[in-house]
């Protein structure tokens, strides 16, 4: 679902590369943790995988069709994200002006899923993340844990091949963080997706199938 080969990235005007020659892959149904010190380039790597920042060299094959996101144009990268990638962020990023159901419907609309399927899929997922009946509610009325559950439902609703999560429990208390992590892993495996989770938490990393450590020298 994700295959990275000889990936290099250097910021504009920087002397040193952020990373170079990175190669790894994540299989369907596999959850991989990406750890490393602050500033080592974990978020940059995640941005490159999502096509939000350009890589200088190498390839990133994403999804069931294994499209190389490095070689795609801007619009095609957006289309690939819409169809094949789900995102979970530390800061939740739930749209405050849309209801919970509308927030979850956004990836379905962007992926072009038939409108008739939306309600059933959203209701089913809300139930699976423990938010049954929350569809008409507004984000402002939800707690942090509930918002992250909405974000997980949004990341999974269009059945993407790859989930990218950036510190998904970073803003939550330990008990809620445990619940959210368990939910995320369970749903990812249930959908047989691949997941790459950037984290500083040893506990989160231990819960994953595999741990990759990014250092200035490369992946370990």
């Amino acid at each position, binding site marked *: 679902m994700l295959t990275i080969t000889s990936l290099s990235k250097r910021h504009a005007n920087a002397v040193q590369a952020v990373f170079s020659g990175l190669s790894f892959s994540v299989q369907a149904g596999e959850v991989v943790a990406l750890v490393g010190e602050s500033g080592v380039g974990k978020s940059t790597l995640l941005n490159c995988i999502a096509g939000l920042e350009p890589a200088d060299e190498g390839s990133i094959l994403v999804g069931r069709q294994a499209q190389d996101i490095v070689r795609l144009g801007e619009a095609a990268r957006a289309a690939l994200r819409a*169809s094949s990638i789900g995102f979970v962020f530390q800061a939740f990023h739930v749209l405050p*002006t849309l209801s919970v159901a509308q927030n979850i419907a956004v990836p379905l609309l962007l992926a072009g899923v038939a409108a008739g399927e939306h309600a059933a899929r959203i209701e089913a997922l809300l139930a699976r993340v423990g938010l049954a009946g929350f569809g008409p509610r507004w984000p402002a009325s939800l707690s942090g844990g509930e918002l992250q559950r909405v974000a997980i439902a*949004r990341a999974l609703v269009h059945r993407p091949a790859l989930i990218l999560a950036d510190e998904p429990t970073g803003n939550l208390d330990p008990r809620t963080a445990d619940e959210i992590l368990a939910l995320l892993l369970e749903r990812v495996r249930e959908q047989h997706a691949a997941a790459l989770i950037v984290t500083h938490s040893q506990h989160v990393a231990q819960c994953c199938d595999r741990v990759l450590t990014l250092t200035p020298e490369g992946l370990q």
Partner: protein
Amino acid sequence: MIRLAWWLVRAQFTTRRMATALSMLAIALGVALGYAIHLINAAALADFSQAMKSVQGEPDAVIAPRDSAGQVPLALINEIARDADVAIIAPVIETRVRIDNATMAVKLIGLDVFSAAAVTPKLLPRQSDRVAGGSVFEDGVYASPTLLARFKLAPGDAVTLVRGDTHWRTRIAGDLPAARPDDLLLVADIAWVQARFGPAGGVSEGRVRLASGVRVGNWLGAWAGRLPAGLALRAAEDDSARVSNVSRAYRVNLNVLALVALLTGAFLVFATQLTAVAQRSTQFALLGVLGLSPRLRLWQVLLEGLAIGVPGAGLGLVLGYVMSLAFTQVIGGDLGGGYFSGSAPAILPRPAPALGFFALGCAASLTGALYPAWLNRIQPLAQALKTGFAQSPPSGGAAPRRRRWLKGAAMALVALAAIGLTRLPALFDLPLAGYAAIALVLVLGIGAAPPVTQIVFGALARLRLPAPLRIAVQNIVQAPLMAQVAASGLIVSFALTVSMVTMVSSFRTAVDQWLDVVLPAPMYVRSKGVPLPRELLGALAQPAAPFEKVERSAAVSLSLDPQRPAVALLVRELDRAEAAARLPFTGAVLAAPADRLVVWISEPMQQLYRLAPGQSLRLPLLGREVEAFIGGTWRDYARQFGAVVIGAADYVALGGRFEPTDLALWPRPGEEAAARTWLAKFTADYGLEMAESGEIRKLSLSIFDKSFAVTYALEAAAMLIGLFGLAVTLAAGVWLRARELATLSALGFDRAMLTRAVMFEGAMIAGIGLVIGLACGVAVGAILTHVVNPQAFHWRMKLEIPWLQVLPGAALSLLAGIFASRFAARQATRLPVAQVLANAQ
């Protein structure tokens, strides 16, 4: 995807109600003004054209003397009637008479009832049952229903028609059932009119209906060479063109002003959409990350612009219709321009222009959304998701230093182009290059905002400043986009307001000074187009008359170009040697060779017919072409389509009849009251108008102010929109910095300090906008005064900047800016600090 777009539009409208409503209102105002002006102009032109057709009928061609004092010989009418290509020719005599002793003169038309039935059916009379008699026109005159109502007359009533000293007793024989509601007309048999009022052996004009299949152009060409010099044949279509040309420049000017209101509306949409994009940058970035393509992010903002434009333009059409109804009732169909009669024409909206103005409103709104949409398209997603709106998105191409040079060079080019455009002549009789120069000055002003902001605040940032001021200065230096947007809106609106005030003030001062010269006498008497009674003129010549000096004058009209309105020929008791002291000349007065006829042309005449002092001018006078020497050009703000002054003695020497219609009177010192009493008898007996120069001056200036009423309304609208834009942008700027303000608050700044910081910022932004706006306003005012006015209206004047209006206006705008920023600051600092900081996590 449409569903998502709709959700986002709806969310935008519900979360930013005030800014969205103001943007809609601004667009509505621009559309409303433009549409109202269009509706009123169209209605007034149609009304005037119909009035002309009602009186003139619908002939194919008209033969008339080029000099209003002239006539068409009956022999020529008979010759044309014999032409096989002519179906019918209707001879007409038109003159003006008073009914009994009324002050108002009305038109008396003499018709041949048989030919009139074919050419001017709307003037056909209907004999009243109450009037005994044989055939129509056997005796008496026929009156339009409006005239009957105005003078409280009825068929059968006896009336006295007065022209000069001539009195004719007759009766109202019936009415004119097809006359229009505005027509004040009398119709009588042509022979009856000719016998009493002249002209002997001729008629005022002949209206020709050609035989079927004959082309008007060919027929006119065939006859052109056979006419005597003082006559002109014109296609009746030319009359419609002439009617339209009368007010064309005024209409275009008003439409340009309405477009300006629309432009400021577009600016408000720009400010609203830019702040909307800035405020929602994280949301748009999230949508981008989730897969919303850059193109769709651009379209989303454009769609939101359109969602403001569509209801705004729709509301504008409704408002425009209502305004057109109100304007026609209050200031008449000519919008105070004084071109048509003060009637209130019927407003008839038609689909095509309504659609056009609707599209214009939508286009303005879309234009305003264009740059914000582009900014939204190029926002770096990862960065925007993390830190919010990027004011200076990454741009490729030249290095910053080179870009600055390129921008400087581009601005210099724009300035040169603007100067170049002011030197170009009018195109199609319109100051199009002048309008383009104004647009470039505004572009220059907006373009100057970023460098001026950076230079001024860059320098201020290096000084030791109190904390609130330092925060304000630092914020503008570091995040200039919002400041520049707010300043730009104010630059445009203040520049337009200053320019209008400057132009109107320059014009008013010039008219005021001009009135001093053209109203030298303390008293004036006029008879509104009919000759003054000989009894009065004779009495004035007696030693007993309480006047030390009397100057008589008359006016006739000359047609120099069938497409243009007639030129006034002013016959004045003026010696060629003293002309320099009696007319407000704009330049040197040339001495004419002793054997040549000399005339003095007005400034509009000089420009319209491209004449100059010292040249020869051929005038169609008294049935022939008369060559005259142009002795000089004089200032005339009264007759936009040109005037020529000729000495009464010269006019009489040419064979003209000097029948004075106007008197300038200088009472003997100390006998002013006696002079008024002495005149009162004549004014009462003959329905004359008497006025003192002070009254005429007051009336003239009040007409002037009325004619600029629409301009004042547009100025106020532009300024309000500019201030709304400033308020919206400042509020959004402060909202974007809520986290920063909360952090400062957590660090120990109290609410008062933060509010002061934001107020300083608002004051500085408004100050920059007002200073640049003032500079642009003076430049635009100079273009309006020195380029647009002379080219559109043929009036020249000196530039007068009314500092006593401009500076208080600037101070008020500055206060409004500070007040808007205070409001914004209070809204932002009212939020709980902990909540703002928690949300920033």
